[in-house]
Structure formats: structure tokens, C-alpha cells
């Protein structure tokens, strides 16, 4: 600790270089933190879904293939099933928004039983059930678009060749800020009628079926029975836990986690080189000072430690700016990213913050090893002769 003031002074010795080095670490670790937060949020959300004991049923061929709506009642009839609803991604355009938010055609009677983590006022839920052209919207979706109960909205279909004219019956909320509050639920029957009227081949099909099991135990058995039920039909299915479904959904984009880890590794290596170069330059300029330190009694070990701690400090300061910056930015996501869809459920977990800071310390350590070693080896006689 008694060496800390000296180390801190050396950190800020060349302010411009320290700021540039720190900022390069900050910006890069900001990106790495956000990418890793994505993985961690996926994992944490997946873990969280376990408590809801939900199963997702998709077509056996894959998510892009339809599941007949008749399957829903057959699933409901199985023992161990508390509720089941179709959940079809509509993906319609609202006004000038370029990226569609989550709009799902579902069954109003059981949706709040299946997705029980969302709170809806009983009167609003009743109004939704009674209104074929009604919908419930997530609080964040409503807030971002200034919607209130009673508003009429139009969603122009993109995947489906129909336009929905909906009335907002209520707004659902959730205790967890990470839940999908940027969504909208409307009647599956309304969509299906429009599709039938349009003679669309998409009529009569649900995208997925979300099943709420009566108990979190024996999910495996229930999934087997669901698969078995439709095994010899024209539309066999694949039942998986919600956790596995989320993972599968992510993996449709490719092995995202591997991409992220490879990108992060490349960033870390390049950062080590950048920070190492800055540190080496700094130490070259200080050869004479190192020689003086050694002359007055600073051992190789102390010199080595001083340089290493300095390198780690620079990286940790930069890392703190980047990593905590990411944490703060996404903690304020509703203000900072207002109106940008897809961000609402995103956050930077503390586990990612700790990981980011550990990464910063590691970058500092590795970037400092060579300059520290060279400083420790400086000959006092040669170092004192050196005029910088």
C-alpha cells in the first residue's frame, strides 16, 4: 500500500498516453461485456424459466414449420398438463417502425396461466377474453409508444398477408425487468379468421405451443408423451423445455456463443498488445529511474511488482470505465435506448461485471509481464549512463 501513491503518479505520468490506453481498454471491454452479458442473460433467463415448468412444442422439422392448431387441444388432454396455448409470432409492422416487436397470436383463456409471471388486472384480462379484436400489451411496449387502454392500433402483417386492427384491453406488467414486457398478445382466432378469409395456407396453424406442466417434476416424461402422441401423424412434433427452446432459438443464428468467445479472445489479445506496447514505451523512458530505484535498494522483485501493479491498474481503470459503463448504460436502458426494440429484456449481470473486471486485470498482468521483467533486469550501471 505504501508504494501506491508512487504507482498512481506513474500511471498518470503521461496523461495522454494513459487516457488513450485506458480508453482503448474501456471501449473494447465495453463490447466484450455486452457480448458476454448476452450469453449470461440467455443462461440466466434459461435457468429462471425452470421454475415455470414450461414445455415448448414445435414442428419436428424445425421452428419455421407450422404446428396444426388442433394439436393444442390434444396436448391439453394429456395428463400432467395444466394449460397449453398456441403462440404464433405475427411480426407485423406498427406505423414506421422498421423492426417488429413481439406480437403473439394466442389463446386469451389460458395465456395468463401459461405465462404466469405476468400480472394483468382481472378486469382487463376479462375484457381481453371477451373482445375478439382485443389485445394485451406489455408495459414497456405501451410506454415506448404512449399507448393506453382503449387505444386502437393497426399491425400490418409481413409474414402473414393480413392486417390486424386491435383495441388495447389492458397492460401487463412483471416484477422482473428482464421479462418480455415489450410484447403484445392477441386472439389466435382473430388471426386465423382473417387468414381463412384470405384463403391463406397459413390458416389453422400455430407457430409453437407453450405448455404449462402441472408439476416441474417429470417434464421429461411429459415431453416424451407429447412427442409420442403426434409421432405417427402428418405433423410430428418436438417437445423441449423452455430453457432448451431458448437455447435452440439462439443457436439458429449459428454457434453464437462460440463466435462471441472467439471475438472476445481476439479483442483481449489485441488489447494485451496495445497495453503492453504502451507500458513498454513508458518503461523505456524510465530506464534511468529504474536504475536509481535499484541503486537505492529496490530489489528486482519490488521493481517487477511495481511495474506489474501499474500495468494492472491502468487496465483496471480502463476496464472499470468500460465494464461498469456497460452495466450503467443497460441499467438505464429504458431512457438510453428508448424506442429501440429488442433491448428491453437485456441487462448486464453482476457475474459479467466481475468477469469483465477479471479480464481487465488479466490484460494488465499480461501486458505488464515483459516490460516488468525488462525493468527488473535493468543494470544499475548501464541504466544510470542512459540519458533519455
Amino acid at each position, binding site marked *: 500500500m*505504501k508504494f501506491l501513491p*508512487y504507482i498512481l*503518479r506513474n500511471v*498518470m*505520468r503521461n496523461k495522454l498516453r494513459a487516457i488513450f490506453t485506458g480508453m482503448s481498454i474501456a471501449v473494447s471491454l465495453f463490447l466484450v461485456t455486452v457480448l458476454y452479458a448476452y450469453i449470461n442473460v440467455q443462461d440466466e433467463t434459461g435457468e429462471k424459466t425452470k421454475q415455470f415448468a414450461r414445455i415448448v412444442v414445435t414442428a419436428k422439422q424445425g421452428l419455421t414449420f407450422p404446428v396444426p392448431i388442433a394439436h393444442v387441444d390434444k396436448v391439453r388432454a394429456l395428463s400432467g398438463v395444466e394449460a397449453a396455448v398456441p403462440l404464433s409470432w405475427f411480426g407485423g409492422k406498427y406505423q414506421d417502425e422498421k423492426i417488429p416487436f413481439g406480437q403473439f397470436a394466442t389463446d386469451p383463456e389460458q395465456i395468463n396461466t401459461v405465462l404466469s409471471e405476468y400480472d394483468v388486472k382481472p378486469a382487463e384480462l376479462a375484457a381481453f377474453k371477451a373482445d375478439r379484436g382485443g389485445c394485451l400489451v406489455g408495459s414497456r411496449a405501451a410506454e415506448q409508444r404512449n399507448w393506453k387502454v382503449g387505444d386502437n392500433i393497426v399491425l400490418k402483417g409481413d409474414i402473414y398477408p393480413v392486417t390486424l386492427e386491435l383495441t388495447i384491453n389492458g397492460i401487463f406488467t412483471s416484477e422482473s425487468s428482464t421479462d418480455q414486457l415489450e410484447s403484445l398478445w392477441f386472439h389466435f382466432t382473430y388471426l386465423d379468421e382473417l387468414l381463412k378469409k384470405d384463403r391463406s395456407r397459413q390458416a389453422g396453424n400455430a407457430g409453437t405451443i407453450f405448455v404449462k406442466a402441472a408439476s416441474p417434476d417429470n417434464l421429461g416424461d411429459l415431453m416424451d408423451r407429447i412427442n409420442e402422441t403426434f409421432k405417427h401423424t402428418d405433423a410430428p412434433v418436438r417437445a423441449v423445455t423452455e430453457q432448451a427452446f431458448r437455447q435452440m432459438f439462439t443457436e439458429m443464428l449459428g454457434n453464437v456463443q462460440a463466435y462471441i468467445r472467439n471475438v472476445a479472445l481476439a479483442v483481449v489479445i489485441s488489447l494485451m498488445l496495445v497495453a503492453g506496447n504502451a507500458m513498454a514505451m513508458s518503461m523505456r523512458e524510465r530506464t534511468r529511474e529504474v536504475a536509481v530505484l535499484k*541503486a*537505492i535498494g*529496490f530489489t*528486482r522483485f519490488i521493481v517487477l511488482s511495481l511495474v506489474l501493479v501499474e500495468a494492472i491498474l491502468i487496465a483496471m481503470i480502463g476496464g472499470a470505465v468500460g465494464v461498469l459503463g456497460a452495466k450503467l448504460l443497460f441499467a438505464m436502458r429504458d431512457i438510453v435506448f428508448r424506442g429501440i426494440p429488442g433491448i428491453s429484456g437485456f441487462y448486464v449481470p453482476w457475474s459479467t461485471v466481475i468477469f469483465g473486471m477479471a479480464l481487465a486485470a488479466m490484460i494488465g498482468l499480461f501486458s505488464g509481464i515483459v516490460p516488468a521483467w525488462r525493468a527488473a533486469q535493468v543494470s544499475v550501471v548501464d541504466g544510470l549512463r542512459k540519458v533519455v
Partner: protein
Amino acid sequence: MPDPARPAVVELRGVSKEYMRDKTPVPVLKDTDLDIPQGDFVAVMGPSGSGKSTLLNLVAGLDRATTGTVTVAGQELGELSESKLTRWRSHHLGFIFQLYNLMPVLTAFENVELPLLLTSLSRRERAEHVRTALKIVGLQERHDHFPRQLSGGQEQRVAIARALVNDPVLLLADEPTGNLDSTAAQEIMDLLQQLNEEFDKTIVMVTHDPRAARRARRMLHLEKGTFVETEVDALEARR
């Protein structure tokens, strides 16, 4: 002449030093014997390349003799490993350099405190030592100034305070006035003389400056690695 009643702080016996240049050994110091007793103030003079700095480096334990033994404060330096020698220096030696060699990022106070960071002294004890050292060199008012805010003479006085703060048995000064104007040089020599006479500090000073050398008790002349004259009692000469 050395006072035989006083113990020798520095003893060189048959010390030679050779450097290798293009695989050819170049002798710098040749079979040198030297005794410097406690409380002595020795000025080592000689032309460039005569071996003055090499002699100083050997006494400081910054370099190793090719042959012979260097004993300082009763410790034969050749017996110590690199790290032990470094630790030994921090307790027994004080260095004064031509270019002052203060840490530019530290204040005068912090520069003087630097050697004390290697001790087990508390923060308060360190501060007391630093204040005393700065008072001796007359810079207690400038304790919070950075080297860039000080004149050359003041920087050298801070460097002397840093050399003193550990209360070393031997002060080694390498051209301490070499970078100063004559007034500042005189002040520094006054200070070194005061340290020798009032505080009984043993000082070995390498210098080109005859005026500075005359302030020492003894002058030694080196030429081509050998003492060419026996000791001149500078104090007597000065008187």
C-alpha cells in the same frame, strides 16, 4: 592521513576490474588497495576513463570486481547475492548523482521518503525522518514542490536529503557539482562538508572539479586505473 584509531568503512584489497570489449579484456582498475576510515571525506579525481566511476560502482556494490575484495562497513560485497546486495545498499549507502536523478512524478518530500518505503517504519516515523533530512539540507519549506519547480541546486539538495534519510554509513557522490553553476556548487560542497564535519558522515566523492575536491579531507588521483599519487590531505592543503 587516515586516522588509524577509526575503523575502516571502505577496504579495497587487490581490486582489479576488467571489461570485455570485442572479446578483448580492457583493464579499468589495476590491483588497487584503499582504506577509507569512518568520518573521512575522500575526493577521487582523475581524467575521463581513469577508473573513478568504476571505483565508485565497486564500492557501491553496483558492479563486481574481477579480482580482489571490496569490504564496506565490515561486509565483503562479493559474498552477497544480487538481491542481498540491493537490500544491503538500502541500509548502508546513500547516493548522490550528477544529474540528481529525482523521480519527476514525486514531490521533494516523496522523493526523500522513497528509500524509507523499503523499511518497516510507520508513515509517521517516515514523515519525521523526511522532515529532518529536508531540514538538514534547508529545504523544509519546499517539501511539496516537484523537481521541475526547483532549481538545479535545490534538486541536488533534495537528492542529498534522499541519500541521508536512511542515516547511511557511507555517502557516495558522483560528480555532485558537475551540473551546477559555481554558486550552487559551492552551496552543495558546503553542505557535504557540513555533513562530514558535523554529522561525521563518511563521504567518497568522484569529481573533475579541483575546487570541489579541495573541500574534501583527502584527494586521491587515479590515472589509467592506478592511484598515481599518494593521498593529498586536502583539508591541510586548503588550510
